[in-house]
């Protein structure tokens, strides 16, 4: 009940943020822009729309999660609304979880809106809509759940600008860390290889949630991959949220 109340108020606050609509507008522009790319392309035009559309969903969803997520907790502290909230019979973790779920609800609705724009474009071209597109979008949402947790973690102890930089770095590192795995496979056995493996385990690998290539090129996706990617996403998100709660639990609100 308490978590729900905070989640609803967070949602009401987030949907008032102009940044959200600006990003939604740009996402719509990018998705529609894929129509122009189609005109310049020879070959399977549906692939271009799917590729650009899914990439737009992922990039703009991430920007929404980071730009709003990093300000959510900070704003409560800065504007001192947290004083009255935490003086009520509410645990700090409930507050943080409410904020997180409220933002996830906002992102879910925004992702749904972007998906509608994307699908309308598909229907206009009379291309068949494949079920695998929804799987790719579902994993974009799983990735957003993790990115939101990261944004909230940084927001617990840092300013919005620094939190945005940290969260963007997490996103970028997460999408290139798979290169490290390729490197590890080619390394000779030894201490450096072990060290590289430890670094790879510690770094996020957000490519686990990227099924765009499989969807665009109609490649089969083994069910085992779904399971492991979902598990990875859930465990990583829970870990980051637990970390955020630990930081928030002992924080002084000066």
């Amino acid at each position, binding site marked *: 009940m308490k978590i729900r109340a905070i989640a609803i108020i967070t949602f*009401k*606050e987030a949907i008032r943020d102009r940044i959200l609509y600006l990003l939604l507008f740009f996402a719509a522009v990018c998705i529609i822009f894929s129509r122009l790319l189609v005109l310049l392309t020879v070959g399977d035009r549906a692939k271009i729309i799917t590729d650009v559309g899914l990439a737009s969903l992922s990039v703009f969803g991430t920007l929404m999660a980071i730009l709003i997520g990093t300000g959510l907790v900070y704003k409560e502290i800065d504007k001192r609304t947290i004083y009255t909230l935490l003086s009520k*019979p509410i645990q700090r973790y409930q507050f943080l979880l409410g904020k997180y779920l409220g933002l996830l609800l906002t992102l879910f609705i925004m992702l749904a809106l972007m998906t509608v724009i994307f699908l309308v474009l598909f229907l206009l071209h009379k291309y068949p809509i494949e079920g695998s597109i929804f799987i790719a979008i579902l994993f974009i949402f799983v990735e957003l759940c993790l990115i939101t947790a990261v944004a909230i973690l940084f927001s617990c102890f840092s300013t919005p600008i620094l939190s945005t930089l940290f969260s963007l770095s997490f996103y970028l590192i997460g999408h290139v860390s798979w290169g490290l795995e390729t490197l590890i496979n080619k390394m000779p056995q030894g201490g450096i290889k072990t060290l590289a493996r430890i670094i790879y385990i510690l770094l996020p690998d957000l490519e686990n949630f990227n099924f765009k290539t499989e969807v665009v090129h109609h490649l089969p996706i083994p069910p085992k991959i779904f399971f492991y990617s979902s598990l990875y996403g859930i465990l990583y998100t829970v870990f980051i949220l637990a970390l955020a709660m630990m930081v928030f639990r002992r924080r002084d609100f000066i």
Partner: protein
Amino acid sequence: MDTVLRIEDLHKSFKTGFIPKGKKILNGISLEVKAGEIFGYLGPNGAGKTTTLKCVLGLIFPDKGNIEIFGQSNLSMQAKEKIGFLPENPYFYDYLSATEFLSFYSDLTLAKKEEKKAKIATLLKLVGLEHVASLQLRKFSRGMLQRIGLAQALINDPSLVFLDEPLGGLDPLGRKEIRDVIVRLKGEGKTVFLSSHILQDIEMICDRVAILVEGHIINQGPLQDLISEKVKVTEITISGMRPEDLRDLGEHYSAQGGRILLKVFEEEKIATILQMIQTKKGKVHSLIPRTETLEDLFVGAVKQK
């Protein structure tokens, strides 16, 4: 009387600067607040009043010390269910209407749905905001925000209410209204912890006070014990007399309309002065004995510190 709030040896310091340097804000605060009283927590700006309140409410963690509310840890949910808090210069979600705002806070305290509506209406009436129930908070004046903040503090029907500078930023009428609400809370059996530096208000409504200076409590107790009943000075307003006639009787100041304000420091001289005025056909307009005020006590204590 039962103790509802007990603070023992509370210490708090903050680290500031690029190379963190500890700054002590509270240096061993100890106090007790009894059930049903209005407790005034006095101190100049920067004395540590808000820091004490934040420690009590669990917003910051003390370096050392113990805080109990109704015999339980201040951080326990059971203790928090019995308290309400109005911060200084409150800021709230300004896109919500007064009713939506109180409804949100009501949800945080697990109020029953059917009771919620009636409770919100009663509170809006109590703080005089029933006519703006559906107005967004962004359109509220500072005084109105203070009042909705007070309503928020009372949403869970707390037994102990913490008010941090509740009368700051209010016009005289607004101050009187909030004072009346505070006195009414006491009438309902609630305990009020009032942190302020507006001495007149504290003097008017508080049963006991504690004076905080530089993180130390330098004086505390019932107001009547702290302030001496002895007359310090008697102010007499006289007309129809020449200032020369009043020489050596006390300090005299010319007031408007040929009136003279005479300040007499020795109480035993009063009868002689009145007799002299009568003899010389003068007229006494007013005679006010001034006892020690909280302000005298406060200023004296701060200066001593």
